[in-house]
């Protein structure tokens, strides 16, 4: 079981390394969108500090969305998905491997970049840490929930827009608790409650999403 998940992750990471443009463009999108806000609003530190958690989290959601349509589309196009569906192992485990690989190349770099970008918003030190932590905890849920949407819109014409309409509403709880954790730190309430709920969302998302995704993929393959 672990062997299969490792094989999927290994293959997807190797593919991502050979196609770095995809990974890098999503990261640059994140950097640029986040950097536009301080430039547009001007040096009002009080306002920027207030906006920071929401802006960084919304930008992270959108950057994750960018790479989602290709999560299964390439495998579907070249026939690999059929082979994965015919392997004598649960398709859900394959999906879990793909979700983890997607997080490693999209969510993890976003979280690691966030503290650097947060400086532009004059965030205090502890808020920067909580921001990074909340992204680390929350982004796996984005990859998991996104996988369901990517599977449901597989092979649909104009699937990218449909995918956003389908997935972004489901991201709302993650956004609320993720941005809320940073807010709570700055107002002195402490982020534990928000981070715990975020962790629960991620655990639920990463555990259940692969099975729903596998069912959607089997329908797409018919």
């Amino acid at each position: 079981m672990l062997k299969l998940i490792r094989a999927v992750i290994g293959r997807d990471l190797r593919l991502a390394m050979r196609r770095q443009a995809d990974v890098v463009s999503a990261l640059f999108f994140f950097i640029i969108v986040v950097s536009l806000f301080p430039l547009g609003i001007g040096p009002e530190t009080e306002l920027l500090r207030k906006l920071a958690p929401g802006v960084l989290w919304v930008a992270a959601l959108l950057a994750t969305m960018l790479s989602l349509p290709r999560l299964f589309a390439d495998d579907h196009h070249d026939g690999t998905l059929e082979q994965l569906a015919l392997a004598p192992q649960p398709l859900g485990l394959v999906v879990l491997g793909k979700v983890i690989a997607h997080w490693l190349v999209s969510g993890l770099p976003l979280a690691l970049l966030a503290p650097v970008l947060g400086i532009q918003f004059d965030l205090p030190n502890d808020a920067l840490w909580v921001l990074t932590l909340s992204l680390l905890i929350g982004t796996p849920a984005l990859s998991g929930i996104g996988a369901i949407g990517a599977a449901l819109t597989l092979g649909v014409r104009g699937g990218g827009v449909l995918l956003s309409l389908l997935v972004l509403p489901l991201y709302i709880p993650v956004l609320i608790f993720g941005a809320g954790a940073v807010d709570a730190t700055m107002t002195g309430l402490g982020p534990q409650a928000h981070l715990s709920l975020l962790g629960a969302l991620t655990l639920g998302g990463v555990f259940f999403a692969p099975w729903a995704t596998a069912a959607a993929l089997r329908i797409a393959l018919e």
Partner: protein
Amino acid sequence: MLNASNLECVRGERRLFSGVGFRLAGGEMLYLQGKNGSGKTSLLRMLCGLTPAADGEIYWRGEPIGRLGDDFRAELCYLGHHNAIKEELTPLENLLASARLADEALDPDAALDALEQVGLLGREDLACRYLSQGQKRRVALARLVHERRALWVLDEPYVALDTAAVELVAGLIGAHLQRGGLAVLTTHQTVAVSAGAVRELQLS
């Protein structure tokens, strides 16, 4: 070992075929024939369990394939229209990755040997996107060299291949039948296979 009875295929509003059935025992091969669009690929996908049949049932060793699930898939090797290879990976990486994902043991030496047999030695470290169509098909077919699963389902295996490669694939299928395996394939060119009994099924 592989029985199908009274299969019906409906695509959209159109019924492609109905009442299709056959029995295939070890060491036998089934040629599916029919015009373009007659449902050959659909029937193959049904046999793999990818597409559910509108009517009828498929049995493997006396049990419906839907109930066998992973036990059936562990004995199945499917080669579809698409080559299922990644353009960014080299032939060697492709072969090893697909074996690992299909839960088959394949060591790098065996994989290199398979690539040598399909005539890709010297190309094993070149990304597949630089290969020609026929060479990509050879990469996909290299899977068959060390494939010991009982049922091979091959969709147009000879497409894009030159005569030498067609001979080679026919040889692989022959050896597979000699080991007691089963094969179901669609093709528009009839190629003599060295061993095993050949049945034909015409879809109309």
